[in-house]
C-alpha cells in the first residue's frame, strides 16, 4: 500500500493538488455554460426574462415557454449528460486499457450502435414502415450492448479478460460491422441514406425530457461504480499483476469498467447519434493539467465533457440558424485542432 501511494505521489508530482482548484472551477464553468445554453438559440429570448418564464410568470409568451421548457432545457440537460457520459467513459477506458488511444468506440459500442441504427432505418422501414425509425434509440442502445458483450466474450478465456485481445478484437468487429453497414447502405433508398448520414453526424436536436431522463439513469448507475472503478484503475496503472498484488480483483474491475462504459456510451449514442472526439480528447486535456488519479480524473472529465458538448451544441444550433449544423462536425472542427495543438506543445510531458 505504501509502495502504491509512493508511486502515485511520484506519478502525479506537482499536479497532485490541482484538482482542488480545477474541479470547483469546472463546476462553476458548467453552471455558467448551462445558463448560456438556455439563453441562446434561434429564438431571441432576453436573458432577464428567463426566470419569469421558468417560474411560469403570466407575462411569459406561450411560444417562449414552449421553447424554453420543451426545447432548450431538455436539450441543455441532454448535452451535459451525453458530454459527461462520453468523457467519463473515455477516461475509464484509457485507464482500463492503459492505452492513450482508447475511446468509447473501442469496446464496440459505437460500431454496434451504428450498425443497429442503419438496420433500423433501412430494414425496419422496409418491413415495418416509417414507425420503425421511432425505435432507433432503443435498437441503437441494444446493438451497442450486444457488440460489447460479444467482444467481451471473445477476449475472455478461462475467466480472464485479455485487454490486448479486446483492443484488436474491437478493430476486427468494427471492420465487420462497417462491412454490414455498407451492405445496408447499398440497400437503402436516397431518403434512408440521408437519414442515416445525419444520424451518424450526431445531433441533440431531438432532445426530450424522456431522453434526458433515461440517460441520467445510466449516469446514476455509473456514479455508484465510480469510487470502486477509480481505486482499481489507479492500481491497474502500475500493471495487472501489481494491481492484483495490491488486492484488486482485476477481473471484476474489468467487468465493471466495461459494463459502465458500455451502458453510458450506448445511452449517449442512442439519444444523440455518433458524437466523436469528446471521449478521446477530454481525459488527455485534463491529464496535462491535473493528477492522473482516477478519483479526480473521472469526475473532472465528466464536467469538462459536459462543458465542451454544451459549447459545441451552442455553436451547432446558432451558427447557421434557423438551420442547424450536425454537432459531430462541430466537435471534430473544434476538437481536432485543439487536440493537435495540445499534443505539439506538450510532447515531452506526454512521452514521459
Amino acid at each position, binding site marked *: 500500500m505504501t509502495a502504491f501511494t509512493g508511486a502515485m505521489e511520484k506519478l502525479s508530482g506537482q499536479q497532485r493538488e490541482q484538482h482542488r482548484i480545477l474541479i470547483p472551477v469546472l463546476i462553476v464553468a458548467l453552471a455558467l455554460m448551462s445558463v448560456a445554453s438556455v439563453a441562446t438559440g434561434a429564438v431571441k429570448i432576453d436573458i432577464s426574462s428567463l426566470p419569469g418564464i421558468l417560474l411560469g410568470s403570466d407575462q411569459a409568451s406561450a411560444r417562449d415557454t414552449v421553447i424554453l421548457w420543451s*426545447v432548450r432545457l431538455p436539450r441543455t440537460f441532454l448535452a451535459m449528460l451525453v458530454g459527461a457520459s462520453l468523457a467519463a467513459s473515455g477516461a475509464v477506458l484509457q485507464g482500463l486499457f492503459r492505452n492513450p488511444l482508447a475511446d468509447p468506440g473501442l469496446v464496440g459500442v459505437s460500431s454496434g450502435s451504428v450498425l443497429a441504427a442503419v438496420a433500423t432505418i433501412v430494414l425496419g422501414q422496409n418491413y415495418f414502415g416509417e414507425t420503425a425509425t421511432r425505435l432507433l434509440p432503443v435498437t441503437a442502445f441494444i446493438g451497442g450492448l450486444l457488440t460489447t458483450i460479444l467482444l467481451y466474450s471473445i477476449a475472455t478465456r478461462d475467466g480472464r479478460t485479455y485487454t490486448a485481445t479486446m483492443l484488436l478484437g474491437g478493430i476486427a468487429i468494427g471492420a465487420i460491422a462497417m462491412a454490414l453497414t455498407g451492405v445496408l447502405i447499398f440497400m437503402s433508398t436516397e431518403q434512408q441514406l440521408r437519414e442515416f448520414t*445525419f444520424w451518424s453526424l450526431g445531433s441533440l*436536436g*431531438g*432532445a426530450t425530457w424522456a431522453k434526458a431522463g433515461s440517460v441520467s439513469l445510466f449516469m446514476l448507475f455509473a456514479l455508484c461504480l465510480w469510487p470502486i472503478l477509480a481505486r482499481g484503475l489507479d492500481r491497474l496503472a502500475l500493471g495487472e499483476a501489481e494491481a492484483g498484488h495490491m488486492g484488486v480483483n482485476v477481473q471484476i474491475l474489468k467487468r465493471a469498467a466495461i459494463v459502465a462504459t458500455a451502458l453510458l456510451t450506448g445511452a449517449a449514442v442512442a439519444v444523440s447519434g455518433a458524437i466523436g472526439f469528446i471521449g478521446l480528447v477530454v481525459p488527455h486535456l485534463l491529464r496535462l493539467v491535473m493528477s492522473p488519479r482516477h478519483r479526480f480524473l473521472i469526475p473532472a472529465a465528466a464536467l469538462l465533457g459536459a462543458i465542451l458538448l454544451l459549447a459545441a451544441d451552442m455553436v451547432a444550433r446558432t451558427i447557421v440558424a434557423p438551420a442547424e449544423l450536425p454537432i459531430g462536425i462541430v466537435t471534430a472542427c473544434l476538437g481536432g485542432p485543439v487536440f493537435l495543438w495540445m499534443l505539439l506543445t506538450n510532447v515531452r510531458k506526454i512521452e514521459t
Partner: protein
Amino acid sequence: MQMRNAAVFKLSRRSTVLGSLALLGSLSHTTRAGTITDAGNVSVSVTAPKRIVTIGSAITEIVFALGEKSHVVAVDLTSMGVAGAQGMIDVGYMRALSTEGVLSQAPDLICVSSDSGPPAVLDALRASGVPFALIPHVPTIEGIKVKVSLLGTLLDKAAEAEKLNAGIDAAFAKLAEKIATVKQRPKVLFVLSLADNRIMAGGHTTAADTMITLAGGENIATSFAGYKPISAETILETPPDAIVMMNTGPNSHEAGEVFANTAFAGSPAAKAGALFKMDGSYLLGFGPHTAEAATELAHKLHPELAL
C-alpha cells in the same frame, strides 16, 4: 359560397374522406379555417394562418399555387428553387430540421412533407402546440393530388385546390393520350450522378422512373430499386437511347463528359447526342408542375409528337 359547396361535394364524390374533411373545413365560415387528418393520422385545425412555414419543395409550390404565398414566412432549403421563394428565410435542409430554428420564425402553421426529418424534431414540432400538418409524400399522380387536396382543405382554399387538381388531371390526361399513340418507347437512363465516372442511376420505384414512364420512355435500370451505382456492363447490354440528368449542382455534367464514359460511348444516345438535363426539383419533386415537367421530358424523348 354556393360554388364552394359544389366544389366540396364534387371532391367528396371522388374521395369521401377528403370531401368530408373539406366540408368540416368550410363549416365555420366566419374566417378562413380548415381541418384535416394528416399523414401522421392526427387531426390538424387552423384558423386564418398568417405565418406559414413550408418544408418540401412540392408543399411550398402547392401553397404558393393556392394563393397563400403572402402568408409564407419561411421555407426549407429544397424549396429555394421554387419560383418566388428566392429571398425567403431558409430553415435548413428538410431532413436535418431544427426545432427551435423552425419555431424561431414564429409560425402559426407548419406544413411538412412526410419525407422530412429527423423524426425526433418532427415530434417536437408537433408537441410545440403550433398547428403542424404532415403532408404525405407519394411520388405518383394520385400522390400529388392528395397533397393539393389536403393543403387546399387546411388553408380553406378547397375551390382553388379543386381547380389545381382538375388542371393536373387534364395535363396528365393530355400527355397520356399523346403517349398512347407512340409506337416505339425509347430506352432511357436517369443518371443521378457521374462523380469520378461512376454511374449512379435511378432504378424502379424512384421518382425518376415514374417520370420516364409518364414521358413515354422505358427505364433500362429495372433490376434494382432506388438510386444505386450501376455497372457499365448492364448499360452496354441495353444501350440507352437517351440519358436524363439534373442540370444543377455538382451533378451537372456536359454532354462531352457524359458520352466520353465507356458505358455510354457507343450508345444510340451518344450518337444522337441525346442528353436531357432538367431542374432536379422540377423533374423529381412531384408537385403541381410535374405534369409540365413530364410533358417537357416527353417532348425531348418524342420530338415527333405535337405536345
